[in-house]
């Protein structure tokens, strides 16, 4: 909403208020002021008459002039084509300040110049607001007889001495898209009087009409039309032109200006049709027209079914609520007009305007909602102005389609309620005085205060809480006391799922991994070929584009893509994790953890100390994490990956199971993906977080430390490559029985000393008992049993 303070000043007493005061109060009352600009700006301007004008000898366009500014004659070099002897111009003297420059004395091609003759554009006036024949468009502004040499009140006389506030309206205050409503609001905010013009009932006059009006769509529930057989096209009065320009609307002629002016005043978009173009004198509103249509901006739009269209005589004549048509527009020789003041469905107007890319002032107002009485108000005001400024005659009676269903209503408020909600201590008198400022005509009835809601606030003020807000917003929030709720104590805590996530994040970040948050939405390919999808992917019905059309069903592509991005940007040793919920068709919702490791997990070049990532780092990290979370190794089975070998290296991946259920899949990412996605060799885990949430973790249980020493023995065997060492350790533990406390592999050797297809594996076995010191014979017996088991079962050849 562009608000001209000059226009506002015509309607509300602003005396004694600075622009900053007004802005501050407006902002505090709930209207953001996004911008404040001067319509035109210039300090040190004076009216001068060009008394001599010669061509510059060294230039094909410059003029050397003498300009009389009253008390002196200035030498000024001017490049404007319309500069000539006898015209009066705006002179910016040396030292004058313009929006983009300060004027200095200068030498232009050898000739001294003491000032500048100005175009309105140089004073900051926007090009699109100037008249088509304005001299400022191609040269300097030429001043008329109102201006005398030496005058300095140029901007005032031009009507350009205005401050414009760009006010952002909240969705409930579309009423303020009307200058009249905004003026009432500002009067309430500033606690000043408001004087609006009287125009009610001006359209109630008119001769009998044979104009026919109908709507074939529910999206046009109310339409007022009126035929005016005779009007005179001429320029608008200066005040109207000034207010229009200040509001960012170009002045065209009195009739078109009146339609725009009334829209600005009342908020109701209006349209005038040339009566000549409608020989059958009828309008039908439809929403089933399909085809091209040329609007009055000269652009042809593709109209589709659903778009509300004005038609007459069996052809389209305007895009309802958005823009009139080229075929029915007012021309310089228009003699009679048909006035439209109608209500069109906001959401539909908005959809059409969005699709056509045609965001007009009218469309925006319909989309945001109108005063329910606006159609009649606008028609009244338009008639008043047409009669006065366009010699309107031959006025026919108003034709109405549908009706205005608005009924005035009241809202009941109490002092107690208002103070209870706001936490204030206001008295009834204070409340009543605020409601009076808002023109809500408060009546006090016992403990009730009854507010009469004006029609333009009907969308907004419906219940007592709305009144609570009106009062505190005008009194101001600055003095509202900050308190904390007085209520029973409650225990604040995280759920198990929330705590679990925090634990996982802590462990993984402490181990050198960076957490990421990536996009949920991806393209079709990202959900088609993916690891263990949670279900059938959900496709958006209204995606913004194809790249963000599907909801991800696995985290793998997100992490692989993030790794690829980092690889492309030369980030090395990238180790990442993400926790996110996945969704699929049929109300499927699953939360997962994903990890991707590449390069080294820890690295110090100087000290040659690093842990290079491998299948074993991701396996170890995962099992240690699970152990920390209360899912110790005993509950987790590490089994062969028979679920997905297209994303994982078939021989360097595994599945973790808890009971019968798959908890996680992990391993080396398939070399083909590594190649395709241009990522370094990487290791990946995806884990079902829901399963951890739903499973009971082990409690902390202190170990009893044996007071007796343990015995450590080593064993080395040559084993065939295909024998899984994990199985061998299990068998060793079983054979050894309770004395075996711990078995660990400390070396694996392959090479010339060992037959091909075999490896030498060295184990360290710790024996112990909690109730006595082990005897050598005791240990030997168990140790021999273990040796025998390996030899017999795995053909292990004992090396030591």
């Amino acid at each position, binding site marked *: 909403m562009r608000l001209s303070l000059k226009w506002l000043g015509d309607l509300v007493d602003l005396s004694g208020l600075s622009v900053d005061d007004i802005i501050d109060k407006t902002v505090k009352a709930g209207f953001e002021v996004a911008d404040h600009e001067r319509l035109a700006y210039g300090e040190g301007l004076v009216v001068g008459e060009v008394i001599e004008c010669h061509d510059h000898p060294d230039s094909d366009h410059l003029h050397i002039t003498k300009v009389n500014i009253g008390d002196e004659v200035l030498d000024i070099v001017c490049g404007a084509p319309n500069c000539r002897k006898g015209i009066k111009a705006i002179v910016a003297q040396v030292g004058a300040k313009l929006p983009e420059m300060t004027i200095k004395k200068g030498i232009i091609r050898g000739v001294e110049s003491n000032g500048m003759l100005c175009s309105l554009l140089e004073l900051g006036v926007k090009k699109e607001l100037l008249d088509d024949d304005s001299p400022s468009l191609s040269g300097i502004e030429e001043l008329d007889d109102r201006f005398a040499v030496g005058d300095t009140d140029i901007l005032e006389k031009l009507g350009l001495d205005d401050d414009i506030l760009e006010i952002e309206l909240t969705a409930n205050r579309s009423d303020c898209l009307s200058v009249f409503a905004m003026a009432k609001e500002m009067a309430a905010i500033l606690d000043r009087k408001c004087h609006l013009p009287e125009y009610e009932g001006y359209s109630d006059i008119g001769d009998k009409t044979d104009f026919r009006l109908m709507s074939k769509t529910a999206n046009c529930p109310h339409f007022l039309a009126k035929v005016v057989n005779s009007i005179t096209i001429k320029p608008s009065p200066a005040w109207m032109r000034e207010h229009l320009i200040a509001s960012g609307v170009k002045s065209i002629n009195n009739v078109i200006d009146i339609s725009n002016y009334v829209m600005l005043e009342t908020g109701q978009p209006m349209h005038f049709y040339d009566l000549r173009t409608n020989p059958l004198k009828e309008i039908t509103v439809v929403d089933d027209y399909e085809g091209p249509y040329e609007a009055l901006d000269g652009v042809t739009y593709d109209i589709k079914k659903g778009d509300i269209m004005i038609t007459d005589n069996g052809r389209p004549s305007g895009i309802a609520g958005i823009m009139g048509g080229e075929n029915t527009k007012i021309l310089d020789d228009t003699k009679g007009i048909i006035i439209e003041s109608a209500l069109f469905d*906001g959401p539909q107007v908005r959809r059409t305007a969005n699709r056509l890319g045609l965001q007009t002032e009218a469309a925006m107002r319909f989309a945001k909602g109108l005063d329910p009485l606006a159609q009649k108000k606008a028609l009244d005001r338009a008639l008043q102005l047409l009669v006065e400024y366009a010699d309107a005659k031959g006025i026919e009676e108003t034709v109405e389609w549908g009706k205005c269903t608005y009924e005035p209503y009241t809202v009941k408020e109490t002092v107690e309620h208002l103070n209870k909600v706001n936490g204030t201590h206001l008295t009834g008198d204070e409340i009543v005085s605020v409601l009076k400022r808002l023109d809500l005509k408060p009546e006090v009835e016992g403990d009730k205060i009854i507010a009469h809601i004006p029609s333009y606030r009907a969308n907004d003020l419906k219940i007592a809480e709305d009144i*609570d807000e009106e009062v505190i917003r005008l009194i101001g*929030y600055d003095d509202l006391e*900050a308190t904390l709720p007085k*209520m029973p104590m409650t225990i604040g805590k995280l759920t198990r*799922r929330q705590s679990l996530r925090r634990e996982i994040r802590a462990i993984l*970040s402490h181990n*050198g991994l*960076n957490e990421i948050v990536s996009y949920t939405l991806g393209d079709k390919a990202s959900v088609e070929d993916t690891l263990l999808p949670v279900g059938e992917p959900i496709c958006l019905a209204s995606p*913004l584009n194809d790249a963000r059309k599907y909801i991800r069903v696995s985290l793998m592509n997100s992490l692989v893509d993030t790794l690829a991005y980092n690889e492309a940007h030369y980030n090395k040793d990238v180790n990442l994790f993400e926790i996110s919920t996945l969704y699929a068709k049929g109300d499927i919702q699953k939360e997962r953890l994903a990890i991707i490791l590449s390069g080294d997990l820890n690295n110090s070049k100087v000290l040659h100390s690093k842990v290079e990532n491998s299948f074993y780092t991701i396996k170890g990290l995962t099992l240690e994490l699970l152990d920390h979370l209360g899912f110790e190794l005993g509950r987790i089975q590490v089994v062969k990956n028979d679920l997905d070998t297209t994303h994982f290296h078939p021989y360097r991946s595994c599945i973790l199971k808890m009971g019968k259920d798959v908890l996680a899949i992990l391993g080396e990412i398939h070399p083909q993906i590594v190649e395709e996605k241009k990522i370094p060799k990487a290791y990946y885990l995806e884990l079902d977080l829901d399963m951890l949430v739903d499973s009971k973790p082990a409690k902390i249980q202190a170990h009893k430390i044996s007071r007796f020493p343990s015995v450590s023995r080593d064993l080395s065997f040559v084993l065939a490559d295909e024998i899984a060492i994990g199985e061998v350790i299990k068998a060793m533990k079983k054979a050894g029985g309770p004395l075996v406390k711990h078995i660990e592999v400390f070396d694996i050797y392959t090479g010339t000393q060992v037959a091909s297809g075999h490896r030498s594996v060295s184990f360290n076995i710790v024996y112990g008992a909690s109730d006595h010191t082990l005897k050598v014979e005791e240990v030997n017996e168990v140790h021999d049993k273990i040796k025998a088991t390996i030899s017999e079962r795995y053909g292990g050849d004992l090396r030591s």
Partner: protein
Amino acid sequence: MDLKEVIGLKEEALKKIDEAKDLKDIEELRIAYLSKKGKVSGLMEVMRSIPKEEKAAFGKEVNIVKDEITKALEAKKDELKKIEDTKRLEAEKIDITLDAYTPKLGTLHPLTLVQEAIEDCFVGLGYKVAEGPEVELDYYNFERANIPEGHPARDMQDSLYIDEKTLLRTHTTAIQMRVLEKEAHDLPIKLICPGKVYRRDNDDATHSHQFMQAEGLVVAEGITLGDLKGTLQFMIDSLFGEGHKIRFRPSYFPFTEPSVEVDMSCHMCHGKGCPVCKGTGWIEILGSGMVHPNVLKMAGIDPERYTGFAFGIGLERVAMLKYGIDDIRDLYTNDARFLEAFKRLD
């Protein structure tokens, strides 16, 4: 052998001790003089041949000599040990300016840091943390939030719809609506609801089709707008450090009435005006208000008896302000160099 010789022996020993260069010399001297076969012990042998009447004096003198040598040896030993220790430490000198072996710490995502900070602030005040589905029913996202049919947000053009009734939630208000319905008979409610939300926006430096919010909700008897102000002041102090002012500006949200926009005094310039706050001294930080009676009614809560407040804060906004991030897309690109910065404690 007479006393003169004894003194001579002593002086010889003390001289040698003084000249000793290392602990090995000291040990050799100890053996040469004080061991069983050493020179001082040798003096005891001499005692036998000393006349009876001189024995006592001689013995006394020998003991004095022994004592002096012992003390001198020990003193010299301490001195030399100190020198040797110093030398040894010197020999162990390393270059402390070399790159260290650094156990690499990973990082939490900045959005997580902000989310956890907000959660912790409110858990401390006795709030629960509630979550809800991102694939949400139009009913909870809009209808229950008092956003009527025909509202622009309910248009396919503005929200990411899946079908007529389902969409990717556009705000975490949807979580509040679910909890309100579920816990209508278990008041009071004190909640903080963080989560991802989605809008049909093109991504640029300040817009993201995916972003995060955290909303707060309190419903009980006697809750006022003043309580909202106090609670938000507490949150801002907790997130940005104490000493920030907050300011309420009237605003509009369909699900609250009255509604207020909340500004905090700029954390960069403390209200003086700077580029971050565009010279105003204030930064718009969140939207809030008193829960709209229609919202309470729809959930089955009597708005005559209970009131409540709600607020919603954008986690990206907080992260961007706190950490000086100027492009929202950086939060979703996950460049390792960007993430590295967040290993520091707040």
